[in-house]
């Protein structure tokens, strides 16, 4: 998998699990590039892609933030985005002869894990406050 894809996935995961919260400022392109030892243009591409997908938002002259505009995306748009990723999963499952029930089970388990992680990080947050 290309490096920019890996970084995109990691940031999305952090947003989904609440490690990064709406309105959080993410590191600048320079900072993240230096931290990961990755070309700055790669990070720029990552941030642009994540902005396009409404995960991040660039405030000109200020910085890049985790977007809070998720609610502005229509349900059908959101469904479409999920369906796209699920196609890959479905293809793999059919290829490997895994029955639908077992795939659903796996999906449910992953979904719940992420929700509980998110709940955990919210709880920790309110304690700190």
């Amino acid at each position, binding site marked *: 998998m*290309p490096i920019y894809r890996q970084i995109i996935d990691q940031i999305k995961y952090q947003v989904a699990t609440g490690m990064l919260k709406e309105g959080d400022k993410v590191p600048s392109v*320079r900072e993240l*590039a*230096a*931290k990961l*030892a*990755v*070309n*700055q243009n*790669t990070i720029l591409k990552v941030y642009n892609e994540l902005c396009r997908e409404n995960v991040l938002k660039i405030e000109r002259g200020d910085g890049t933030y985790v977007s809070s505009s998720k609610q502005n995306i229509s349900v059908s748009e959101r469904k479409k985005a999920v369906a796209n990723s699920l196609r890959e999963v479905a293809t793999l499952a059919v290829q490997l002869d895994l029955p639908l029930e077992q795939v659903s089970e796996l999906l449910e388990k992953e979904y719940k894990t992420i929700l509980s992680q998110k709940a955990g990080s919210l709880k920790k947050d309110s304690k700190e406050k």
Partner: protein
Amino acid sequence: MSEPAIKIEGLHFSYGKKQVLKGVNLEVPKGSIFGFLGRNGTGKTTLIKTMLGLQKPKSGKCLVGGMDSFTQTLDIRKRIGFMAEDQQMYGWMKVKQIIKWVAGFYPNWDYEFSDKLIVKFGLSLDAKVKELSKGQNSSLALLLALGHRPDIVILDDPTLGLDPIARKDFLRHVIELLQSDGVTVFFSSHLLYEIEPVADYIAILDKGVIVKSCKTEELRESVRRFILTPSSNTNFSEIPGILDTFQTGNTISVTIEDCTEQKREKIKSMSSNGTQENELNLDEIFEAYVIGNKGLESIESKI
């Protein structure tokens, strides 16, 4: 586009009768990080030495920062930073002594900057050079290459012999100190996976010529391997850009570069029962370029 930082045209170089560079053409865009790959002994260091004007090419042209490598060697030295492969430094000197000594060669040495780097790299001014670890040694060599604030930096296999953490630290410094300031970095290595995250462009040198030069992401996206059972009378040489072919039983795997929809269709039409298309990992891509048989070998069973 602006004039490239480094421009090499038709460069030939021989050690006696042994031809090492056989017509190298290369352009390094200004401000880019350029990864220069090749196996050990393919002439990477020879090309770098020629770029620096340390040796005279048999023919061809080499411009660094718009200056001729061979006739304007001294001007080039002032403008570029260079770190040699496995750089040897006077072991008996202390860190502060070697910095003072090297700085003496450059009227434009930036002491404030080199002091900053000492702290950043965690070097101790009173340590003897021979007592430094390999990682500290390469940090010091980098400092000595950068102290005069060059706008082009040439690093010859700078991470050779470093452990993975020291290697990552080194690459981090390159990105933080050089890319941020718009410095052009020409960086040789024999490890594609090391170059990939940092390089904007990649060139592969093999058998004295550049066999590939492109944007880093293109390299990964454009090389594909197809596995198929060919129908009779197939002639793979009709497809341009074959890097490697390999046969096991009646199955053939074909690796091609610049894979377009057209080539994909062509290959599919040669198969008797469908094709499987795979992406390659970086090591496999590098291998395909440097030891691939280019489809020239007659296809016969090898196992």
